[in-house]
């Protein structure tokens, strides 16, 4: 993981030199989506709670930033932090009653949230500017750095992504992360071990919403514009597809998923206007059936196979690696996580 993180950061920080300004913007979006998907992966992949409504938290982050920077002249850095904090609180509060819902019902409750978002944004038009939306100023490049505003946003998003990747990694590998995963695997046993499942699930919902809210804040700055129809239910579905394609129960999967939702619709659009949704739908079905651990799971498996073939001169693989390999399908599988009979 450390190595992967260094790789992402290293390549990421060097990349803009080779990119056109439009490509720079595209990669900025990839990082932003990756942050959003990281939140979704923590919730769905690790905690086993479902959300079809994370677009709402993305919207909260985006509008918090838009309102704070344009109406109140608050520096965007504080606005990003406030967006994360507000999403955390709203996510936590949404998570509390959501404890009553399991599986399908939670999916429906969150989907209702996604459906309501554009309407709510239009309704409170004195704050949100109604359907006209709000135009933001792009953050200016600090310290007289010799880069463009788009490149600055690129570096800003990448830095936020790297920090949030590291925090997620730390969270998930320690005491709290084990408890989060234990709730997914066996809630009754988790409680018997002393895990306050209700609190942990709400907190996880909050943290998940915070990630997606921060992504929304960066998204608003990158596009320099927010409007209600950008935050339709399709955004939430996009996130879900990206999450499954990248690999729900993985941290690195968020980056692959981010790349998928940024690039695939653009290239599919060249085939036909209706193509992106057809391709999204097909991909979702194919991944659920054929590659439930997503791109991240595929890479893990290929790496394990390579490691084994390189060690093949040595004694036959012990039962441990064989079993680890067998368990790979179980660990982090979208089907295991999403298809759990409730």
């Amino acid at each position, binding site marked *: 993981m450390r190595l992967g993180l260094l790789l992402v950061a290293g390549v990421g920080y060097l990349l803009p030199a080779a990119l056109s300004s439009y490509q720079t913007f595209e990669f900025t979006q990839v990082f932003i989506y990756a942050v959003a998907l990281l939140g979704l992966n923590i919730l769905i992949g690790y905690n086993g709670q479902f959300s079809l409504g994370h677009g709402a938290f993305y919207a909260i982050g985006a509008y918090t930033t838009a309102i704070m920077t344009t109406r109140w002249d608050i520096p965007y850095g504080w606005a990003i932090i406030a967006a994360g904090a507000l999403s955390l609180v709203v996510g936590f509060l949404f998570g509390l009653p959501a404890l009553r819902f399991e599986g399908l019902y939670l999916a429906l409750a969150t989907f209702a949230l996604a459906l309501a978002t554009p309407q709510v944004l239009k309704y409170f038009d004195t704050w949100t500017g109604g359907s006209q939306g709000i135009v933001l100023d792009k953050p200016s490049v600090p310290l007289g750095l010799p880069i463009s505003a788009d490149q600055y946003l690129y570096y800003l998003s990448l830095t936020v992504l790297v920090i949030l990747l590291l925090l997620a990694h730390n969270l998930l590998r320690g005491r709290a992360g084990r408890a989060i995963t234990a709730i997914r695997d066996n809630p009754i*046993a988790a409680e018997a*071990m*002393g895990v306050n499942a209700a609190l942990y699930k709400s907190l996880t919902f909050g943290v998940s919403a915070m990630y997606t809210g921060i992504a929304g804040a960066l998204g608003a700055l990158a596009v320099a514009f927010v409007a209600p129809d950008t935050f339709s239910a399709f955004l939430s579905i996009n996130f879900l597809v990206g999450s499954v394609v990248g690999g729900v129960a993985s941290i690195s999967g968020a980056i692959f998923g981010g790349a998928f939702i940024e690039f695939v619709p653009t290239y599919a659009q060249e085939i036909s206007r209706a193509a992106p949704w057809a391709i999204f739908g097909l991909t979702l079905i194919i991944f659920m059936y054929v590659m439930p651990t997503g791109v991240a799971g595929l890479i893990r498996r290929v790496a394990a196979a390579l490691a084994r073939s390189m060690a093949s001169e040595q004694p036959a693989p012990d039962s441990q690696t064989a079993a680890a390999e067998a368990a790979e399908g179980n660990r982090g599988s979208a089907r295991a996580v999403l298809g759990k009979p409730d």
Partner: protein
Amino acid sequence: MAGNDALLVVQDIVVRFSGIVALDGVTFEVEAGKIVGLIGPNGAGKTTLFNCLSCLYRPVNGAITFAGRSLLGLPRYRIAEMGICRTFQNLALFSTMSVLENVMLGVHSRTRTGFLSQALRLPQARREESFIHDQAMQAISFLSLEHLAGHPAAGLPYGTLKRIEIARALAGAPKLLLLDEPAGGLNHEEVTELVGLLREIRDRLKVTVLLVEHHMNLVMQVSDRVVVLDFGRKIAEGPPAQVQRNAEVIRAYLGR
């Protein structure tokens, strides 16, 4: 503690499930430092009693007192920190995790650090993490599972999974250990090992054990006292040799 050395006092517990009475006024005590066997034919209410002690079920009547405090109405997650850890009749492991990670969860109730200090890897989070690791490894080596520590829990033999559950429960440093049919599915040799293990848990770890088991031989060998349930009622109680000769117990077992 009312002047007696009972660690657990179960008083007049009644549990009903739509129509059937699973526990019908059960009363007994578990003394500290003993192994108490809880036996009875299938459906007698043994697991239901465990589930009351775990606060999974709430009895409609009666009282449960542990170390002088009432357990009724406590949230489930508080039970482990009070000092009661358990295993499950039908296994309840965390199937995507390694053996070590499973047992590390046993230490959850004895540790504190939360989301923020974990995410930031603050010094107390690191300290606790190594404490958790040490405690889990101790429980793992007590059960002689060291060679499997990094192994995924899923896919191991049934008898091994039963041992992992015991290790996980012991990692919680309980005062009272509830074992629900630990010998279920074990072969003859494994049952013999279990006898030694149970005695070590009582004598070396000083943990009190409430043992639900069908394997009569095992129960009679290790128990200091035996409580017999049938159709949700206590029909006998006493030293193993005495219970074995009890006419009502023999009828309950032979009558089906």
